[in-house]
């Protein structure tokens, strides 16, 4: 035991001695380890932050600590709470027939609810000031809403605009004065810019909204039998099972119904981490190769005096351990900090930015430590073992295995490809392109029913809003896009009560009927056709001014016929798009389809006049929507007509404004945009959105900056790894050929010729890498850039030139330095040692 301890002591001393005599090697090793650890730490920080943020976003929903909700009645609740697999169930009564309509809540869906005690308890809703609501006119608001309203504490009054259902079923806004009895800490703060809950007592319903429809209450559920390995993807099916059992209306949960989707969240972490491990492995392996080549005589000498392989490995690994501690500490700290700084910028490009949650430092450090250690072990152990196994004689004659340069070329190429791909996305990113993609004009006011079914009853954009916006001094004109909407517009989708998009009812006849029949015959229900109870079909019918046609035509392409403004202006020509999917239309016979040149006689139903109006049109062109950035207004329209004709068909056209494109002579500034927004806010209509070029410009400029920073970071670090690999390989190659080079000099190679030879050797290696980088890089750049503003040829050319210049410069510098280094020893010494 005593001897063993002394042996260990000697080995530690030898390790320390070796460590202190190899300062430059130590520095290179620490840098290599630090670089690898820094990148890994950054990726784990960003990746784990991303996962935490996604989880936060999924948790950030009403009932944050519950698994989901079944929408039904108190009777349903009574049944659910008895179920075995339900750990708890909380009942939250809806008190308003729609979200609250206060001006102060504009843009925020604000619900008035009366939860039971369990809901408060389970979701950690506690008053920070005041008390829970007791009386019917008590309300408890969130701290985030209080801040918005400028309220500091409980007390005081708030007038709520509640949507009340009258006994004849109609809904109207009623102002109800309420007492603020409490302010609670909002557990879903992150949603506060779009969603708020105000709590009252259950008595409110009987007091102010006794005719409120049944079946709109929330029964929040926590299960006790979820499979932990399913990552909550089994929640939806369990809720659905309960819903069917008790006969409730529909379910609501934020947990994805797809296990794979949950797994996909970890892909952004694992893939880059593996990429860095591979890059780091090459780097560390190269560093160790050189170090051990230079130390091989030491191994031979140690063997000669009796050191075992195990002892030599111990000495070397102890040094690696000490160096890796230094490298890893620096790498982990910097990588974590960088990750915390850059992750919000990455997430700012997504819709999850408001939920940002940083990664846990301990977890990041643990993962980084593990991965870096694995990389170190793989990169170093083999070569150390090999060196330690050499006999003294072999060590004296040691010629290091000439590492396959192809691997180095691939490793360098990998860095270069990433640089080209990321660089092209970054440097080629064009803010103006993004802005123009997403906007036709300076500003667009848009009704949500253009692109989605509504959760609340349809509230039209008021015609007065159009007139007010048009009257603004900086507005040149406002083009209105009308879309037909026939009542009733309720629809049932998977048990949820929704309201249709912009659909108008027309009687099927003639060529249109022929096409619809053909679609139904082949689709087997997998189509997008909607019908009224009387068999009429529901289509999107749009009316636009002639002036608008040219702009909108950029967002669809013409399959048959031609778009002609003159004909369109006449009023009896229309554009037509089939109401079904392309893949279904491709299976239908031509003779059954509507074609350009066809005459269509259409009976339009107007519910306000309760009559059909028949019109005959000629199909000017058959079109297909082509609008990847949703900048157009007609990409889903089935029939597009002149708006004069639209107004004839729908006399109440003023309630059919689907969108308004606001034109101005010059870009709108912030103040002008705010004026338009103020007009929209007065609508008090959460079904309206406003999009502006100026806001998009700000957003995409920020996105560009984020992309730039992140791209530069990744390119730089991976580039550094690539450069290090290249340098190490070239240096190792020269070290390997030291005696050969001495021989060449002995027979007459001058220093200049030597320098030139080293330069050519490096460029030979570099040329292969350059070809791979530029060809594969082109392909990768095209793909990565397509996620942003597209491939930029000029940026690619600059990058290519930069890479060629870089390789030439690196080869030149290395050739000069290596020539100097070689000639520090005389030819004789090198020949003798060789």
């Amino acid at each position: 035991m005593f001897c063993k301890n002394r042996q260990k002591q000697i080995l530690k001393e030898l390790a320390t001695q070796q460590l202190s005599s190899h300062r430059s090697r130590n520095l290179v090793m620490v840098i290599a380890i630090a670089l690898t650890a820094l990148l890994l730490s950054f990726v784990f920080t960003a990746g784990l932050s991303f996962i935490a943020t996604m989880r936060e976003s999924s948790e950030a929903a009403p009932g944050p600590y519950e698994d989901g909700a079944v929408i039904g009645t108190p009777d349903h609740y009574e049944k659910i709470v008895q179920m075995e697999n339900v750990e708890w169930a909380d009942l939250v009564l809806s008190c308003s027939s729609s979200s609250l309509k206060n001006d102060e809540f504009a843009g925020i869906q604000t619900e008035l609810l009366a939860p039971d005690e369990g809901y408060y308890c389970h979701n950690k809703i506690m008053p920070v000031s005041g008390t829970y609501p007791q009386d019917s006119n008590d309300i408890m608001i969130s701290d985030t809403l209080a801040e918005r309203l400028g309220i500091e504490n409980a007390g005081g009054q708030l007038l709520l605009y509640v949507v009340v259902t009258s006994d004849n079923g109609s809904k109207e806004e009623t102002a109800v004065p309420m007492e603020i009895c409490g302010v609670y800490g909002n557990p879903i703060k992150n949603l506060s810019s779009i969603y708020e809950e105000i709590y009252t007592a259950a008595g409110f319903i009987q007091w102010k909204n006794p005719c409120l429809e049944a079946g709109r209450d929330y029964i929040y559920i926590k299960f006790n039998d979820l499979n932990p390995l399913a990552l909550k993807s089994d929640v939806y099916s369990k809720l659905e099972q309960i819903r069917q059992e008790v006969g409730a209306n529909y379910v609501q949960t934020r947990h994805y119904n797809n296990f794979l989707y949950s797994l996909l969240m970890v892909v952004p972490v694992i893939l880059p981490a593996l990429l860095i491990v591979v890059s780091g492995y090459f780097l560390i392996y190269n560093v160790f190769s050189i170090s051990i080549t230079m130390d091989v005589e030491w191994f031979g000498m140690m063997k000669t005096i009796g050191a075992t392989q195990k002892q030599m490995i111990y000495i070397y690994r102890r040094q690696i351990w000490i160096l890796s501690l230094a490298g890893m500490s620096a790498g982990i700290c910097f990588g974590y900090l960088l990750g915390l700084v850059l992750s919000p910028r990455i997430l700012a490009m997504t819709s999850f930015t408001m939920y940002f949650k940083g990664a846990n430092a301990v977890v990041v450090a643990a993962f980084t430590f593990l991965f870096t250690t694995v990389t170190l072990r793989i990169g170093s152990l083999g070569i150390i073992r090999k060196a330690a196994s050499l006999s003294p004689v072999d060590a004296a004659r040691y010629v290091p295995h000439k590492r396959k340069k192809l691997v180095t070329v691939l490793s360098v190429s990998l860095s270069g490809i990433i640089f080209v791909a990321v660089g092209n996305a970054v440097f080629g990113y064009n803010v103006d392109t993004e802005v123009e993609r997403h906007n036709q004009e300076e500003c667009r006011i848009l009704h949500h029913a253009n692109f989605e079914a509504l959760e609340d009853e349809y509230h039209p954009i008021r015609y007065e809003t159009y007139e007010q916006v048009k009257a603004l001094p900086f507005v040149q004109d406002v083009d209105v896009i009308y879309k037909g909407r026939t009542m009733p517009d309720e629809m049932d989708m998977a048990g949820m009560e929704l309201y249709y998009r912009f659909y108008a009812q027309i009687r099927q006849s003639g060529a249109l009927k022929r096409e619809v029949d053909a679609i139904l015959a082949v689709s087997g229900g997998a189509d997008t056709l909607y019908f009224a109870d009387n068999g009429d079909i529901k289509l999107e019918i749009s009316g636009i001014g002639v002036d608008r046609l040219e702009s909108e035509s950029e967002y669809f392409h013409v399959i048959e016929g031609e778009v002609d403004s003159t004909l369109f202006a006449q009023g009896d020509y229309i554009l037509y798009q089939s109401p079904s999917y392309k893949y279904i239309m491709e299976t239908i016979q031509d003779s059954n389809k509507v074609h350009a040149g066809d005459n269509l006689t259409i009976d339009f139903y107007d519910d306000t006049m309760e009559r059909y109006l028949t019109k005959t049109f000629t199909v000017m062109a058959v079109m297909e929507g082509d609008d990847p950035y949703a900048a157009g207004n007609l990409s889903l329209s089935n029939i597009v007509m002149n708006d004069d004709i639209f107004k004839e068909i729908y006399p109440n056209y003023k309630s059919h404004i689907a969108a308004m494109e606001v034109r101005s002579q010059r870009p709108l500034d912030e103040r002008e945009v705010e004026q338009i927004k103020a007009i929209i806010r007065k609508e008090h209509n959460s079904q309206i959105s406003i999009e502006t070029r100026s806001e998009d410009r700000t957003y995409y400029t920020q996105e560009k900056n984020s992309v730039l920073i992140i791209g530069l970071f990744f390119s730089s670090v991976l580039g550094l790894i690539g450069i290090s690999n290249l340098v190490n390989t070239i240096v190792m190659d020269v070290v390997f050929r030291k005696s050969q080079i001495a021989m060449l000099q002995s027979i007459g190679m001058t220093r200049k010729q030597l320098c030139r030879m080293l330069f050519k050797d490096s460029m030979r290696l570099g040329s292969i890498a350059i070809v791979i980088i530029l060809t594969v890089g082109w392909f990768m750049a095209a793909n990565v850039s397509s996620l942003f503003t597209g491939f930029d040829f000029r940026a690619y050319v600059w990058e290519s030139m930069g890479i060629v210049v870089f390789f030439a410069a690196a080869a030149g510098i290395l050739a000069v330095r290596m020539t100097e280094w070689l000639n520090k020893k005389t030819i004789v010494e090198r020949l003798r040692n060789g």
Partner: protein
Amino acid sequence: MALLEALNLKKYYGKGSYLVKAVDDISFGIDEGEFVAVVGTSGSGKTTLLNLLGGLDTADSGKVVIRGKSLLELGDEERTVFRRRNIGFVFQNYNLLPEADVYQNIILPIRLDGSKNVDEEYVAGLIEKLGLGDKLRVRPNQLSGGQQQRVAIARALSTKPAIVLADEPTGNLDSETSGQVMELLQRTLKDLGQTMVMITHNEAVAAEADRILHIKDGKLIKE
């Protein structure tokens, strides 16, 4: 005038009590066409002397004059070029380029000189004399020791140097091969009228020389 003159050559290593006089004031001359053997015990300074004569090392004092040119007066580059054109080296461990074939190894010094025109007739003659005709496209690692040494000799002679310096050219060869290589070497040099200085431990080889220089402790003790 002698082809090569060594004048008061000194090369010392270390200082004080660690001073080693590797070459200690040696002077001699070699005429054109002479074969001079340098003999001495290990550590006597033979190799250091050869390195000084070939300009691979610089003397602390003294001169080496070859064809009237003093090596010490030349800069590093000039000395290298001079060595390339006027001195052929044959090493004990051959020192061939492993990735080049036999022919490329032989003409390497000529190519280093930037000469596009190789004297094919002369090189062909060398190849024939040294029996390498059927090995021209073969790599050194596919040749025996004797064959490699013949390639090294051909390389040394390819630039028609003023003098060939051979450092124990048969040191790594068995006796039979040594004999063959030495015979070839001497015959070739005689045919070409070549001057050679050779370090050797082989008494038989030394006996073939026109002159023997005995070195001991860095000094020339007898000729």
